[in-house]
């Protein structure tokens, strides 16, 4: 059960397809040819780089290096969450809410899975820890970003109603209950959809990868189920936590709606 190694020629053939596509878009004046080529080059460089990093990490398997890699991944994911907000929080909160909730949810779930379910020795074995964390971070990132964006947008749009309800003596929890619920739901939807479609509409990437690598399909399926559940838990807890933290931050100790804590919208 060994992998058929891809040669440079194989990759070059695939690259020709992209070049052909770029040629077609140039001919059709779609004006995306340039960004298509740049993106392709980025794919090659970024993946080669991460391949080298992972190879080095596997060769020098030490907890410190694994932790450093995990930390860098978290910080980049936190930046991504912030960058996807149309109205993000001012100051440290803009970066902090997403990063903190990802740290709690994705890290906790990864560590839990490594120590109790997968159980490699040592538990932080990079071959397991890094891909697992990567998949969790990638998905919780999407869920948290969606949930936060939906919350701040909805609160901004409904500010008159929220203040109207506050003025009538409603608590801030009550005045924002529909918006908080909607935001949490939109953070969870992608994961629920992915679980519902798994195996029927799409063959999940990790499972496909394992099967290509020669793992028996049933083994690959078991891993995929585990990952799906971990992702659901990580994304769910992360999105709920982020929506909660953000809605607390939107009000002060006298339950005033503090939209001045958000940056003005972009676009």
């Amino acid at each position: 059960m060994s992998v058929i190694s891809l040669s440079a020629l194989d990759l070059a053939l695939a690259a020709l397809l992209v070049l052909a596509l770029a040629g077609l878009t140039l001919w059709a004046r779609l004006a995306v040819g340039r960004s298509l080529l740049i993106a392709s080059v980025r794919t090659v460089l970024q993946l080669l780089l991460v391949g080298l990093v992972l190879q080095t990490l596997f060769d020098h398997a030490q907890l410190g290096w694994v932790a450093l890699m995990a930390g860098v991944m978290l910080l980049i994911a936190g930046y991504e969450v912030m960058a996807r907000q149309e109205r993000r929080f001012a100051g440290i909160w803009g970066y902090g809410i997403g990063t903190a909730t990802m740290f709690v949810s994705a890290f906790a779930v990864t560590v839990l899975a490594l120590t109790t379910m997968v159980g490699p020795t040592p538990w932080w074995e990079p071959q397991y820890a890094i891909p697992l964390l990567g998949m969790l971070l990638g998905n919780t990132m999407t869920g948290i970003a969606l949930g936060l964006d939906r919350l701040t947008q909805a609160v901004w749009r409904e500010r008159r109603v929220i203040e109207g309800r506050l003025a009538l003596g409603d608590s801030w929890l009550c005045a924002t209950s529909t918006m908080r619920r909607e935001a949490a739901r939109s953070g969870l939807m992608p994961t629920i959809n992915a679980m519902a479609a798994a195996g029927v509409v799409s063959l999940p990437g990790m499972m496909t990868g394992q099967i290509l690598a020669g793992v028996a399909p049933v083994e690959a399926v078991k891993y995929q189920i585990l990952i799906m559940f971990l992702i659901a838990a990580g994304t769910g807890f992360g999105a709920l936590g982020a929506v909660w933290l953000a809605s607390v931050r939107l009000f002060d100790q006298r339950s005033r709606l503090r939209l001045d804590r958000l940056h003005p919208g972009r676009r």
Partner: protein
Amino acid sequence: MPVFCGAGRIAALRMAIGQGMERLLDVRALETEQLGPLDLYLQAGELVQITGASGSGKSLLLRALADLDPSRGTVRLMARDRERIPPTDWRRQVAYVPAETAWWAETVREHFPAGWEPDQAGSWLERFSLPDEALDWEVERLSSGERQRLGLLRAFLNRPRILLLDEPTANLDLENTRRIERAVRSYLAASEAGALWVSHDTLQRGRLGGRVLEIRDRRLVA
């Protein structure tokens, strides 16, 4: 976690005995980013009008008093400090009614505070010249006059001690304007409440009577 909306009790604050009887609302050195420091007081049953050029901060003053915007200074209701009253109770007692009232549910009655009394609502409906069925009207179909009267009625059901009225009759015809003026007057008399009324209609100023204060250069002048 389920949130029970509007479940707070509607309790009238007891008047502190011996002190503050003459001053229902007592504001000292109130300051926000755009206003003040300014002083202001209201007596039970009193209606004070606030005027000023547009952009002078009339709405901001009312919002600060309702504790919807941050402000410094002391604000006392019946000799009790604002900071010692929970914000939800404060806003039921010091009711801010904006020029355009906000509605979020389908029918009118869904916007009423928990524990509202049908008798009370009925008598206010009558005084606002609205039928009893108005409680089940769809918000989408309300005219601006009905919307404004029901918005005020909804605030009355909290039995506030202070009404902060931000141009409540803007864009209304004379008939509806008069109805609202009469209803507010009778509310003040019946509940020993006070009102701050923002208006720049000079005819209305004459009809309403009472003290008139103008906001000029961040301050209130008589």
